[in-house]
């Protein structure tokens, strides 16, 4: 039997989860505690806990404070004065990778919980459309945005969920490749197993200890703290390598290392200074010290991006992707940004909740491209993934249960555009049957690694996977 439960809980494990729980719990502490003492508003406190004098309980809210470069001395090598950072920096040429080709920027969005591919890319025409509407009944999407081939203009026989108008518009411009029937043979239908398999992205058997992008990070000759960033407080498996893992930034303003309060600054500088002296506790202690200094550096460097040119606006995927665009714009050398968008595990009353999740996804991708500077756009590709799709048949609760194949998006000016891979057949499927995958997900990774990231897909994936025509070429 399959044990289902909230995916938000599930994700927390594999990756050490997402931003949500910690950020919100922290906020809830503050709200609860401050309510008890009749003091500050939660909003005034979050991100400013280190601000010494604002902490006097019952005192006035802490105003947002500008960073004082005089206190934040640029002479302290471990700390970068945030004022040195331009929100949008000019970039003359793309980064050239080891293979001598330009290396693109990748934004990867995890749709956690198992996104319903059939209600995302909706079959309209022919027996596929007929079967889909029959199997789904009340859970069928009846008003999809019909997709025409971006080149020929001919009807594709598929449509996008009506809550994805921005993606439909990009599709019409030839900037969205949609991989159909993506998955892998032998899926166990467990969130845990399948998410691990997708994140590991390897041909090998055995417990997944590293992820596909993490193993790519391992190959960097000169690692930097901004190579890969997770929007959230912890690093999912796909960004964990054997020797390296991504850094992280919270979806709200980070505060460790960022408070401008003079007393905080003294403490930060003490920590940073300590990291320059080898500890008699040995090299592990030194590395730990360096990690604290590095964390302050990342947090303080990125801090202005949370408010300039405007506040992020939200803590959800929309705010997270705005931050992602600003990180790319700032030319910090970021190659990969990863963000999670969860709660796709819609076993009951799917239409409303699934639609809401897609509305946020659509808005977030729109916000991302609106924020991304034109100079960066042709060097940036967005991809989504989800651990599995849903059963073709709706269940008795007007939801859908765990399935196998789903679809994913590859988006950006360098996307090839169009539908890629065959859609699995729906003919003759029974209530508990699955759509089997027609395209192995590692073929997507192979294409991204080879064409976009200038990497060797065979060594990173541990096997050879035929690339897919999802990109028209590398970054420009």
């Amino acid at each position, binding site marked *: *039997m399959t*044990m*289902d*439960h909230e995916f938000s809980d599930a994700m*927390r*494990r*594999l*990756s*050490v989860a997402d931003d949500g729980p*910690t950020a919100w*719990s*922290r906020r809830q*502490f503050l709200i609860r505690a401050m309510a*008890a*003492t009749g003091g500050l508003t939660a909003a005034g406190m979050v991100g400013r*806990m*280190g601000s*010494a*004098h604002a*902490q*006097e*309980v019952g005192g006035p809210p802490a105003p947002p404070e500008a960073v004082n470069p005089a206190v934040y001395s640029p002479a302290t090598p471990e700390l970068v004065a945030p004022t040195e950072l331009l929100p949008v920096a000019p970039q003359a040429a793309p980064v050239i990778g080891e293979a001598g080709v330009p290396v693109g920027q990748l934004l990867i969005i995890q749709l956690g919980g198992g996104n319903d591919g059939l209600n995302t890319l909706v079959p309209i025409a022919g027996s596929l459309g007929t079967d889909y509407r029959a199997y789904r009944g009340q859970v069928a999407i009846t008003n999809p945005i019909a997709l025409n081939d971006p080149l020929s203009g001919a009807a594709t026989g598929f449509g996008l969920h009506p809550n994805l108008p921005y993606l439909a518009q990009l599709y019409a411009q030839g900037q969205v490749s949609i991989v159909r029937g993506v998955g892998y043979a032998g899926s166990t239908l*467990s*969130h*845990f197993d399948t998410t*691990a398999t997708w994140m590991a992205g390897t041909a090998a058997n*055995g*417990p997944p*200890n590293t992820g596909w992008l993490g193993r790519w990070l391992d190959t960097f000759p000169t690692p930097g703290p901004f190579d890969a960033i*997770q929007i959230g*407080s*912890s690093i999912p*498996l796909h960004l964990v390598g054997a020797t390296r*893992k*991504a*850094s*992280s930034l919270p979806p709200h303003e*980070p505060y*460790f290392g960022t408070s401008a309060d003079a007393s*905080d600054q*003294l*403490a930060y500088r*003490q*920590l940073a*200074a*300590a990291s320059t002296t*080898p*500890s*008699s*506790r*040995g*090299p*592990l*202690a030194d*590395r*730990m010290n360096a*990690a*604290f200094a590095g*964390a302050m550096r*990342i947090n303080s460097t990125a801090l202005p991006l949370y408010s300039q040119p405007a506040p992020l606006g939200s803590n959800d995927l929309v705010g997270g992707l705005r931050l992602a665009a600003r990180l790319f714009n700032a030319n910090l050398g970021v190659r990969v940004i990863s963000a999670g968008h969860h709660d796709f595990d819609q076993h009951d009353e799917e239409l409303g909740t699934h639609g809401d999740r897609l509305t946020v996804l659509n808005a977030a991708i729109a916000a991302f491209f609106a924020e991304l500077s034109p100079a960066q756009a042709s060097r940036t590709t967005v991809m989504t993934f989800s651990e599995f799709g849903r059963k073709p048949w709706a269940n008795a609760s007007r939801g859908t249960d765990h399935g196998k194949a789903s679809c994913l998006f590859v988006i950006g000016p360098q996307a090839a555009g169009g539908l890629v891979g065959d859609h699995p057949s729906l003919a003759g499927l029974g209530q508990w049957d699955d759509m089997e995958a027609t395209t192995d997900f590692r073929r997507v990774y192979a294409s991204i690694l080879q064409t976009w990231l200038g990497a060797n897909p065979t060594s990173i994936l541990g096997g050879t996977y035929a690339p897919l025509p999802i990109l028209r070429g590398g970054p420009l």
Partner: protein
Amino acid sequence: MPVSQADVAHLLRRVGFGATEAELNALSPLSLSQVYTKALAVRDKSPTPPSAVNDPALGTLEWERINAMKNWWTDRMVATSAIDTSKPSPLVEKMALFWHNHFATSGDKCYNGRAMWEQNLLFHTQGTGNFRTLCKAVSIGTAMLNYLDNESNTKWSPNQNFGRELMELFMLGVGNYTESDVVTSAAAWSGHGVQYGTNWNLTTYLFRPEWHDTQLRPFLGKTQVWNGPQIIDWILDNPATRTIAAKFICRKLWTWLVHPNPADNIVNDLAAIFISNKWAIMPVLNAMFRRAEFWSATARNGLVRTPVEYMVAAGRGVGVGSATLHPHWWDAMGQSLFYPPNVSGWRPNDYWISTSAATTRADFAENLYWQASNPSGPLPNLWKDIVNDDLAPAQRPDPTTVVTKAFRRMGVPNPAPETVTSLVAWCVANRHQWTSAEPWSHWGERAHLFRLVLTSPDMQMA
């Protein structure tokens, strides 16, 4: 001959979760042999579960049961004592944690609080007991049967997941068996499954003979009709594999509790003890912590605290439990108890060194100070006795004393000289304490001292 406080602290960090000030004071006057006896004492191996585990009102809200278990285990680890026999034993809790990581089973897939509890109870009752007994009991626990899919392993449709991992991760290590051995192991375990009760969250172990494979099959040099537990017995009895198994476990114990990459002679010695004591775990632990290498600089500087060890040490130093620590911080730090990332468990040691880990540890430290010391918190005057700012400026302790006291409170009687110098420099830069009658700011200087201690490398080291 008394034992240095630094040595007491090192031993208690590895045997358990770090020393309290009371333990440092009580143990250091004793002889080393007396310290060992107290530190390695085993008791309270059959704890009663938190009430949520068997609370029918929770229905199938299994995550609530598991959350309650998380809080319960946090409180036990925080409460461990090497000097107060009414408290849980450090070694029992440390070994339960070790085996939870070794036989990693996640509540994510085994979404069943009672099954997870039964497994955790085994880690307590047999974690310092016998490896053969433990291994067999875990294998037929419904948590493992579910987690590694053995519940669906039948003679018609073998599922090798458990049969393989038993050898690869639990007993031998990769490369010490063939694919044919995996086939036999899976066949041997076929039919060992789960009986679901009136509710899906009520599970018991059930062997279904009609699902069980009864063919003659070869396994590690012996051909017979195999039944699951016989696989464990033969690995441990077979002269060709028992030493491999013993070394596999002893190497892991040393790697997690002493330092990575132990020399061959250490592993060989411990493995011989393991075998000659018929897989009893305590003789190995007794030998391990008494070896000269345990006291080497390589060992003392060889391990970074895992998030669980870090949070529990902080709770012990401050004197607060799960209500204040909020174990969900582990999720952000990357080590959520009862939810290991996969069947191979968490990775040890320097895996935990990263910028994101540093940020969450710093955030946790700050949140802990705030939680514990706000006026309605459990310890509103946290560390006032360390800074002594109620005294006249001239009578206040000097910066070195303040910093040293603060580290001692957190179970570190011997902070590195560079750490002390650094924090003293910070105290001097703050000046208030020694030049002004003004008390330290509760939310400013005192909070910062707390955070600087908790983010120091000395607090990150196990």
